[in-house]
């Protein structure tokens, strides 16, 4: 179900991921919603904390931009965990809804959730579910998980109360009417594939974000703009590199990002780069170079603006898109041989053709070399040495799923860079048609508007980036304020390092010993089936907190924040979570925040990383739990008072459900143990583990960075 590209991970095989340590991308196919649920929930908790932490973090500069859901999500994305959480929560909600729908059709959603949770994971599960369900409603009504998370600091408190109980009822009422539809939508949503993607920046740093399969590259770019505060010009692109084949290609803005990434193999070393690529839109800046390529170059340089416009009009705005009529002698690498043979190629809208020996150039004699339906065009790097190409100006045509050397890859070599760009661009025009122009126009608009947004609300973007740092600082402050403008992930990472300490405090506060206990709690929900331990731990909220500590390295940050916020407001409400985990999270969270820093985290971490195995992992996983608190906090900042009740609430799924909105985002408690997940495989446990592991891994990475 899950894959990490570069170091691709199948979700189930977290261990692999660990070992690789370089996983850039995690694919999560949430097909078994239930399973995912539980995991997600646990993760969500963890993630939440991160979000809050970031905000609180030193990087105060980052104002948290709430904006719409997407925006929020984006922000969260900085924190891998956050993103994961959100997604997971969403899935959970969806599944719950689905179940509810199935079970009762029209009846209250809450019941279904409750029902569902129990079956899968028992006690722990319930809480999780409750959280999830609440979140979902919130989403449905208001907007998104992300908001809560992002807003956690300030917004959380207030919203939670409302959402928590009153909202529940209201929601329920509404739900009766809209339930079915909602459920269906969620179902659909639940099917959505999501990946956690690590994007490399020019300065060597990286950003990690969650991408779902409905997002196109443009949307992802917008996310990155927010996170990196770059100038947002039209040249910014996402590129995919394939080191094994020495290829690279710029994604088109309208492409879905997830699809091509899914084609990466598990052990792939492919990378995604965020770069300025002038050639992407060169054809719209200097159309004459492509459409009048036969003219002498000096004349082309002197061409007037209005003539350029005319060219674009003629070729991109008519009933039909006109492909530059390229014709050139190119070298073709012969199948399976090292030799390169010259052929006269022609580019047409319908494909690339060559002129067979002894024939004329008339259309009827042309032989089709390739058509573009199933092919992408890539730039080849350093083919001179790799394949003994006549020059280094090579491009390649291959099916996107082909990742290794194969006779099905076509290698072409040009005399010079100019020719190569001409051909690659021409092929893109033939393949993508008017989409390219639309992409360009969209990019232009975005570039213009970004200037404004950057000036006015640079902060908004910051939040996301800061998140990492937030983690570190999180201890101090739960909410996402932290996100300071500093985009530098690296710095953030550092922050994280320090952060660990904070988490410990949290741990201390809440759970004192906890990591283990904590972990257990989380797991239970997720993996109810898998590990009994989790369940028990769950009950001990404190214990849960401890988990945060482990997180410290990775997760720690998140947890702390939540605590803070939660403590102030939400925690109590959610606390109700008597369902151990959630409630604990809330109640405990605050404390953890303070205490977290201390010990738990480190210890847990080490354990976690080293041995995913049960115990250590748990601690490590524990961190995840913190996230939950976050969520709860967000959702039920108000709830805090209720904390005690929470337990009760857990009993009653509905309340929990109401809050879910808040909780939605976070929760993936954690897959304390990989083993469990594996066992459960299909079950949420497995998912939970994954999630937690992922989170940890990510945190780790960050820390390392």
């Amino acid at each position, binding site marked *: 179900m899950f894959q990490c590209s570069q170091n691709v991970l199948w979700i189930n095989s977290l261990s692999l991921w660990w070992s690789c340590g370089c996983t850039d991308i995690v694919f999560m196919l949430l097909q078994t919603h239930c399973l995912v649920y539980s995991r997600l929930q646990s993760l969500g908790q963890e993630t939440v904390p991160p979000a809050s932490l970031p905000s609180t973090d030193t990087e105060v500069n980052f104002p948290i931009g709430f904006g719409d859901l997407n925006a929020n999500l984006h922000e969260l994305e900085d924190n891998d965990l956050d993103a994961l959480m959100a997604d997971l929560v969403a899935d959970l909600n969806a599944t719950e809804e689905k179940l509810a729908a199935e079970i009762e*059709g029209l009846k209250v959603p809450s019941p279904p959730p409750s029902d569902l949770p129990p079956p899968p994971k028992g006690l722990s599960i319930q809480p999780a579910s409750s959280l999830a369900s609440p979140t979902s409603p919130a989403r449905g009504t208001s907007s998104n998980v992300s908001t809560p998370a992002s807003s956690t600091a300030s917004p959380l408190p207030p919203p939670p109360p409302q959402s928590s109980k009153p909202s529940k009822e209201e929601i329920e009422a509404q739900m009766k009417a809209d339930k079915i*539809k909602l459920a269906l939508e969620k179902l659909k949503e639940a099917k959505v594939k999501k990946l956690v993607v690590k994007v490399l920046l020019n300065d060597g740093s990286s950003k990690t974000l969650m991408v779902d399969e409905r997002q196109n590259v443009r949307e992802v770019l917008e996310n990155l703009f927010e996170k990196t505060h770059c100038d947002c010009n039209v040249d910014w692109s996402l590129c995919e590199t394939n080191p094994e084949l020495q290829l690279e290609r710029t994604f088109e803005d309208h492409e879905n990002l997830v699809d091509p990434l899914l*084609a990466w193999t598990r052990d792939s070393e492919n990378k995604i780069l965020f770069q300025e690529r002038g050639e992407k839109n060169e054809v719209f800046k200097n159309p004459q170079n492509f459409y009048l390529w036969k003219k002498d170059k000096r004349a082309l340089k002197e061409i007037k603006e209005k003539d350029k416009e005319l060219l674009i009009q003629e070729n991109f705005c008519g*009933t039909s898109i006109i492909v530059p*009529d390229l014709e050139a002698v190119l070298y073709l690498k012969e199948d399976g041989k090292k030799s390169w043979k010259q052929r006269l190629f022609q580019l*047409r809208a319908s494909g690339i053709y060559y002129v067979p020996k002894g024939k004329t150039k008339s*259309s009827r004699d042309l032989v089709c070399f390739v058509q573009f339906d199933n092919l992408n065009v890539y730039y080849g790097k350093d083919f001179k040495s790799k394949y003994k190409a006549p020059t280094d100006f090579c491009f390649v045509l291959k099916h*996107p799923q*082909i990742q290794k050397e194969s006779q099905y890859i076509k290698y072409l070599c040009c005399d010079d860079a100019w020719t190569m760009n001409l051909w690659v661009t021409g092929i893109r025009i033939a393949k993508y048609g008017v989409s390219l122009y639309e992409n360009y126009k969209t990019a232009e608009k975005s570039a213009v508007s970004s200037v404004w947004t950057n000036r006015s609300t640079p902060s908004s973007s910051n939040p996301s980036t800061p998140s990492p740092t937030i983690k570190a600082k999180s201890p101090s402050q739960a909410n996402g304020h932290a996100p300071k403008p500093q985009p530098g992930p690296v710095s953030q990472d550092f922050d994280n390092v320090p952060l660990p300490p904070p988490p410990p405090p949290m741990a201390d506060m809440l759970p004192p010993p906890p990591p283990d206990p904590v972990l257990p709690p989380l797991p239970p929900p997720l993996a109810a089936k898998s590990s009994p331990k989790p369940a028990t731990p769950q009950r001990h909220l404190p214990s849960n907190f401890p988990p945060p500590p482990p997180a410290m390295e990775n997760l720690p940050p998140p947890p702390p924040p939540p605590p803070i916020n939660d403590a102030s407001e939400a925690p109590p409400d959610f606390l109700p979570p008597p369902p151990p985990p959630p409630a604990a999270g809330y109640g405990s969270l605050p404390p953890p925040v303070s205490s977290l820093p201390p010990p738990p985290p480190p210890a847990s971490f080490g354990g976690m990383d080293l041995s995913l195995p049960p115990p250590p992992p748990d601690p490590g996983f524990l961190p995840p739990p913190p996230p939950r608190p976050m969520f709860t906090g967000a959702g039920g900042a108000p709830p805090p008072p209720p904390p005690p009740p929470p337990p009760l609430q857990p009993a009653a799924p509905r309340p929990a459900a109401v809050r879910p909105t808040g909780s939605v985002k976070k929760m993936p408690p954690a897959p304390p143990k990989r083993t469990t997940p594996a066992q459960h495989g299909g079950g949420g446990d497995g998912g939970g583990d994954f999630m937690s592991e992922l989170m940890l891994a990510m945190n780790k990475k960050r820390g390392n960075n």
Partner: protein
Amino acid sequence: MCAFCPFNISHSLLHMLHAHAHTHTHTLHMHHSHSLSVKAHFRLAETEKKKEQAYFDRSDTSSIDTATQTTTCPAQERARNCCIFSQKNLGNFFKDLTEAQESPSSHFSKPWTEETNDSSPAFLSLSLAPSMAVWDLSVTVEDLGSDAPPVTLSVASDLHVGGVILKLVEKTQIKRDWSDHALWWEQKQRWLLRTAWTLEKYGIHADARLVFMPQHKPLKLCLPNGITLKLRACFSNPVFQTVMGICRMLNIRHPEELSLLRPIEQKKKKKDKDSAEEIYDLTEVPLSSVSRPCLYNGMPAHFADSTQMEAIYKMLSVTQPPPAPEVIAKQYRPASVVDKAHIHGRWLDSSRCLMQQGIQENDRVWLRFKFYAFYDIEPKYDVVRLTQLYEQARWAILLEDIDCTEEEMMLFGALQYHISKVSQSEPQMLSSSAAMDDLESALQSLEVKMEGETSTASEMLEYMTAPELNDYLKIFRPKRLTLKGYKQYWFKFQDTSISYFKSKEESIGEPIQQINLKGCEVAPDVNVTAQKFLIRLLIPAPEGMNEVYLRCENEQQYAQWMAACRLGSKGKTLADSSFQSEIQSIRSFLAMQKTSSSSHGNVPANDESINTHSLVSPRYHKKYKTKQLTPRILDAYQNVAQLSLTDALMRFLQIWQALPDFGLSYVVVRFKGSRKDEVMGIAPNRLIRIDLGVGDVVKTWRYNNMKQWNVNWDIRQVAIEFEGNVNIAFGCVTADCKIVHEFIGGYIFMSTRSREKSDTLNEELFHKLTGGHEAL
């Protein structure tokens, strides 16, 4: 005489005006030296029409229209209708007159005009000019029959044309609507359309052979879709306006893109031999001057009159079934660029009328899109235009008027197949050919939609769980060194994947293998007669593409699995609404293979059995047998099978327009200073110089770099100046330089059209850009 005494005219006219103004009878009396009185009647009411000789007003204009026309019509038109004014239009009228004079206008000097503008009673009372010599003018009246002797009139040179006509009509004693009639001067090949001009002014003497005949005459019009219509077209106005009129009648927007072409003789002969050709008669359609006909039932009102007319409209607006291969083979096909150039030498001159270009009543001409700059195609309003454009494109492909590659030809073939199939089952045509299948599939898709919208939870769940296919199939994976044949397994198609198991019983467990079809290539390998039904899958994997063959037992099974594979390769599941239609189309292709292999050619083109040779040019008739061709077209078809009729038409046009040679009209030219013939390709945005020997493009000039172009009509040479001091000059070999001039000016005109100006066609500009000196 008038030449010396313009006053004659002025007096009579003033008199007319005077009478008009004072009597309000709308009948004007003009007293001339010979006391000839002309009653110019303006039909204000139908009742007046019968007793009057109403050649001044035209049946298609109401009196009110005419009155207002004085301000809106071109000068020429106004002059013809010169009797129409109210007092306030007086000034206008004289202005018209002076304009109408043009070359001889010196007689209508300014002072004179001023005088008339005074229009005082005193002026009106001026005595008439002295009488002039009377001579005999013989006029052939076409309506009397070709054998009837010419009618002889006694006229004086200062009699204006309107007077001649009035006299003529009186003399024939025939009561009818003469409003469309006008005098044609045979020797000079010109119409005497300015009724206010005198014979003197026209330079007509006793030896002139004049013919009195209607301006609108029947014309056989061959449409791009090969159908021939008979309709009344204007023979007296410039062809540009004639085409406007025709397009108005046929409901084709943007008539400026079309023009008339002389047919190719060879073809005509052949056709005459066939003689089976049906001609659809539209001559009864009333001539209308309304710029946009009002629509009734989605078609111009005149088509809604009768079922016959409706049938004709259907012919215009629905694509024709694919022609039989023999028909394609029989058609004239240009074999070279020079042949094509000769065709382009046949365009009629837009600025002269049909009569002047030797087109006679009932002659045959082709209506074709001439300027390949199709502006603002809006399927909603452009049904006929789009259909005819498609037909023209289709024939250009089939007759290899434009070159394309084999792959492109297959795609064009697939689109034609699809279009012909869909156009027969479109809702609007349900009445005629409502095949039960179509109805069923329509209902099905409706159901699917409803499901999607209502969706109770359970329904939704079902809906979201895609249906599966299960069956025993045989699989073969060609690998190195394996000669193993096909092995049978239990196959299951679910979502976008195929899994197979040892047997049906074991299908609950783990499959032997699961193959995700998303992004794979699916190709048929079918021989119906040999009962071979193979599906060839090329499945992408990180290491390359894996080849897998699935063998089906029979058609039914094959159609289902093939359809499933196709959907799967596009990432769709069996729940996709197109599954059933995909099965249908695969079956109909199989059927095609059957019929075409049994009966050679001659298959009537109905939807179930189209001979695939009907879809490609004759070159491929020779290259491939139909059974070889069918799978190739089917292959291309899978990419277009889901298109709606309009989308398919548009796609066809887009691919056509994307061909490198699209929009090129060729003319053989000889460049100044060069001794050899070369070819000039005229495209919507550029001129291309092509070397005849090699066929290579030597040079390209874009219009937007053009500073000016001139035609030296004496030496028939076109000279063009481009920016950067580039000058070219050439004489035209296969076409009159007027045609080249018109192409260049026409394309420049086309590029001036813009949305803001919307519907109004700037006719004047067109003539300015394309007219040449003759138009002046």
